[in-house]
């Protein structure tokens, strides 16, 4: 099952005009500012918004084709749609919300199946609760369970983590990553958070004013942003590699560049390592390699941009990095483009997420 979308739609201020293809099991992220047309793209796929022209093809099924006047209603497109505010039915309990997606099943089995879906997302004890007494994270999981219970051919996630506080978000993100690994359905994830996209998606499309401005893997986009706009969105440094647990309880990640970094997160196998630019400190070139608490990577300053009282450094080397340092540090170390430096950051500041 794959999904192909070509859509042109008038959205008031601008025209949505984009093409995308998601293969079976692939997760595609649409990243961009609010009002860029990301959610509208999901609505076009689900049949909630009729484009002026274009095609939406899922596997062998044509869901929309302006040339052939095909326009299937939403209920005939098998989409698992997680809405931004989750859109749980307020008068139904958690299991009843999930059972609503099980219209194809005999009535007697629905409750059983719905409870099973909730159990998969660790929500079996909350099955009888109404949405208004569920926490944000629980609501998000009920919405996800409901979307998955539809046995979707396409999974559509509209800002699935943005309504959550930062602590809940980490846990919810893990649940989501697990669910994505298990589903065969091509997935379109809408987010304005590049880090989230990097964690969850295989391929990222940066969308602005209804158009795709750049696409690629998180690493590609972070390393070579085509425009300042894209650069701005790639907030966190994203590194891919293979994780190995150490006897001292830390994790060593062998990056694809050959460099080694450490993290206090636990992970094994392919991982995405992220670090925020403001966690990275710049020191004169040289010094020892990775220690158990401090990562150290050799790099060259490619460019420097002052933002407020801080300076953003684009670093090249075996790995593309972005560091944010104070103007005082720049003056103290006489930093300038072309200079060789060491970028260091703590193992505790390195987040690891399993790479799908």
């Amino acid at each position: 099952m794959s999904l192909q979308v070509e859509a042109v739609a008038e959205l008031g201020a601008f025209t949505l005009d984009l093409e995308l293809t998601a293969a079976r099991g692939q997760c595609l992220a649409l990243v961009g500012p609010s009002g860029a047309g990301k959610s509208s793209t999901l609505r076009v796929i689900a049949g909630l918004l009729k484009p002026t022209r274009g095609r939406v093809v899922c596997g062998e099924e044509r869901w929309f084709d302006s040339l052939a006047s095909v326009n299937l209603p939403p209920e005939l497109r098998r989409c698992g749609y997680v809405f931004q505010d989750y859109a749980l039915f307020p008068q139904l309990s958690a299991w009843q919300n999930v059972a609503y997606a099980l219209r194809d099943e005999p009535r007697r089995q629905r409750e059983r199946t719905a409870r099973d879906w909730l159990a998969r997302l660790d929500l079996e004890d909350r099955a009888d609760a109404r949405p208004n007494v569920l926490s944000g994270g629980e609501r998000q999981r009920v919405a996800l369970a409901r979307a998955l219970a539809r046995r979707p051919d396409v999974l559509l996630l509209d800002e699935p983590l943005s309504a959550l506080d930062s602590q809940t978000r980490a846990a919810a993100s893990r649940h989501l990553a697990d669910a994505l690994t298990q589903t065969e359905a091509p997935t379109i994830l809408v987010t304005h958070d590049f880090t989230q996209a990097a964690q969850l998606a295989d391929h990222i499309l940066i969308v602005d004013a209804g158009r795709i401005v750049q696409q690629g893997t998180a690493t590609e986009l972070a390393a070579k942003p085509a425009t300042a706009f894209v650069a701005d969105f790639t907030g966190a440094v994203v590194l891919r590699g293979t994780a190995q647990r150490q006897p001292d309880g830390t994790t060593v990640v062998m990056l694809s560049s050959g460099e080694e970094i450490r993290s206090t997160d636990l992970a094994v196998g392919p991982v995405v390592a992220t670090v925020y630019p403001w966690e990275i400190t710049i020191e004169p070139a040289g010094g020892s390699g990775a220690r158990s608490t401090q990562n150290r990577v050799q790099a060259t300053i490619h460019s420097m941009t002052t933002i407020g009282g801080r300076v953003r450094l684009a670093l090249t080397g075996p790995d593309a990095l972005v560091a944010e340092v104070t103007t005082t540090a720049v003056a103290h170390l006489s930093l300038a483009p072309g200079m060789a430096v060491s970028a260091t950051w703590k193992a505790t500041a390195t987040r690891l997420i399993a790479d799908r």
Partner: protein
Amino acid sequence: MRSHRWFPVVLTAALSVVLLFLALPVVAIFVDTTPAALVASFDDPAAVDALVLSLWTSTLAVGLIVLAGTPAAYLLATRRFRGRNVVVTLIELPLVLPPAVAGIGLLAALGPRGLLGGPLRDAGIDVSLTSVSVVIALTFVAAPFYIRQAEAAFSALDRSWLEASRTLGASEATTFARIAIPTAMPGLVVGLALAWGRALGEFGATLMFAGSFRGVTQTVPLAIYERFSTDFTGALALSAVLVAVSGGILITVRLATRRSAVRVAAG
């Protein structure tokens, strides 16, 4: 300090004035009616006939209003189309129409020589001066109260609930029945109560269009009016009965639908 306090005082004073003005006549009806007069009004067959007629005609009218008005209000709330404002204005027009004008209008439309009444009469259907004409008059004046409220209730629903229902495989009809109605239920009940109250109290249009024949078209308000000039005590007692019945219906409707809303949703 004082400058902080005057506004709440004004609010409280305003509410007190409103409450006093609106509640006083209702209280007066009960104060002036002796329990004996109240009981006596049930011995009067004309009063009982009027009460029975009022109850079944208003129930039927409200039933018709809900049946046709709910989907109509849903359409108005969920779709934007050309001429929508004209449609809404036409629906709300009976609200501002003087009841006497409503009665004349109904006569002109459905009376023996009316626009539609003529052909109907030729086909052997004559509604004039029958209980059916009472139901028509009540439906006409009460429908806007329900439809307006229902439209507002449906408009206030989170659109993403309706959309989520569609993406979960439910047709628009199923979404309407399983999601829109249960979630809009509190608003629909308010509309139903308003419409029922308006239908029970209807006077002018009924008098003009259906007349005031005992047991056939004489509803409680018409019976009260008939007594008013000759038997003020009897009129008062019947008024007290009408207030009690209206109040009772409103409370019952609210309680009953609150429970059934929960059941419909869970089913």
